[in-house]
């Protein structure tokens, strides 16, 4: 039997996060977006609210929530908070926490989970390279055994939280040209300050400007053997697991934004009058609103299924691609429609919708482009 009712705890948590976000996170978002600055004070407020500790085990100071409840919290955060860059930074942190939780040694968990969950330490996961975006296996960052550890050489690009990170999860490939499981990719925890590891300047972007992205450089950076995350050669599987969690949490944030955009649009078309009547009475306008609602409701069903599968310890490869593709494209479409519905006002920065639209473009690019999601779905169908 299916039950779509949220528990009392989930409902209370949803509302408290929405209230918190509206109260604490929405001041000066336009200015931060304009200047491309990371809202560190708000980051710490989110940490105090427990938003960085959603998935952390209790013994490391976390709330130990399942993915469904965590996704609902992120949905609520994104609904209440107008700064999608901040939400993205939080999701990146959560994904790093999940990787350490799932694959870390007891010592690694002890060393990182508490500080990551309190917000004291910011983390990034670095996969993408100049010539290895969707085609992860063509990554060129190399790992070589070096005495009591490993040497990393190569570079990463577009890394979210990169300029702020005190610890970076790095995926690197050994020299083997032909091997199983994704070219023998391994995963490492690299601390800021490691000799041979450096970080580029924050990159200027079209949207998500408060999120800090940069290049990372590894020039024979030495990593002790006990800083390998998981087992040697298991990087591809760690990546596949990470990407499923990421797609669930990103989908949750997109749905929160869609709900906010929908609500704003409904309010507007009920008050804006032209030719003597509310513009929402015109079907060309109300159809757009209806489509956003349809996509929002369908997206929520997909999100809850994705999160439920992961909470059951099952794989959600297909579902994560379907959900990510559908919801990210729906978000982009919803933001574009919302700007159109608001007319000249929607085009103005003051309305905040143009920022949501700019932010939404990235949603169909990061965590696997829409084109790649189509490819994955087709391959999983045996095409």
């Amino acid at each position, binding site marked *: 039997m299916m039950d779509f009712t949220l528990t009392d705890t989930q409902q209370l948590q949803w509302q408290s996060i929405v209230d918190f976000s509206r109260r604490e996170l929405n001041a000066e978002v336009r200015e931060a977006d304009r200047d491309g600055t990371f809202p560190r004070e708000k980051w710490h407020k989110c940490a105090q609210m427990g938003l960085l500790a959603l998935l952390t085990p209790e013994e490391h100071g976390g709330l130990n929530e399942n993915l469904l409840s965590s996704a609902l919290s992120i949905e609520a955060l994104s609904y209440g908070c107008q700064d999608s860059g901040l939400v993205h930074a939080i999701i990146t942190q959560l994904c790093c926490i999940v990787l350490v939780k799932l694959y870390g040694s007891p010592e690694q968990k002890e060393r990182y989970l508490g500080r990551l969950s309190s917000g004291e330490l910011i983390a990034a996961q670095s996969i993408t390279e100049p010539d290895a975006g969707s085609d992860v296996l063509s990554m060129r960052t190399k790992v070589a055994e070096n005495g009591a550890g490993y040497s990393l050489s190569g570079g990463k690009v577009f890394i979210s939280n990169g300029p702020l990170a005190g610890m970076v999860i790095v995926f690197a490939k050994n020299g083997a040209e032909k091997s199983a499981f*994704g070219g023998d990719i391994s995963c490492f925890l690299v601390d800021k300050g490691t000799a041979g590891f450096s970080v580029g300047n924050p990159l200027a972007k079209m949207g998500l400007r408060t999120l800090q992205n940069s290049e990372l450089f590894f020039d024979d950076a030495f990593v002790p053997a006990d800083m390998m995350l998981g087992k040697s050669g*298991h990087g591809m599987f760690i990546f596949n697991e990470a990407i499923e969690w990421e797609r669930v949490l990103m989908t949750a944030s997109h749905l929160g934004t869609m709900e906010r955009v929908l609500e704003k649009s409904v309010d507007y078309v009920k008050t804006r009058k032209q030719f003597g009547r509310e513009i929402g009475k015109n079907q060309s306008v109300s159809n757009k609103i209806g489509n956003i609602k349809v996509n929002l409701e369908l997206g929520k069903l997909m999100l809850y299924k994705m999160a439920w599968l992961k909470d059951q310890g099952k794989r959600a490869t297909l579902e994560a691609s379907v959900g990510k593709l559908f919801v990210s494209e729906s978000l982009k479409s919803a933001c574009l429609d919302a700007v159109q519905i608001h007319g000249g006002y929607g085009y103005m920065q003051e309305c905040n919708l143009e920022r949501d639209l700019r932010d939404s473009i990235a949603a169909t690019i990061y965590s696997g482009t829409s084109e790649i999601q189509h490819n994955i779905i087709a391959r999983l169908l045996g095409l």
Partner: protein
Amino acid sequence: MQVDPKLIKLIEFIKKDLARGKGIGDLSETDDLVEAEVMDSLGIMKLILFLEENFSIKISDDDLTLENFRSVQTIYSLVEKKVKEGGRK
């Protein structure tokens, strides 16, 4: 000698879903799948999903070794071992 139908199903899956279009003719149970570049990153995920769904087993991280996935024969040995251990855990 009667061939296990599950083994036939596994070979068919690898032929039709993983090796298709890669210029691989007849696939024997002992052919080196890694050497033949049959599996890419998504291919291995497809194979794991196939094994878990069709044999009611759970492939753990510890199972993910090159030796377990080198050939149809080694994959099938892994499946048999997991089934004997009690299937999905």
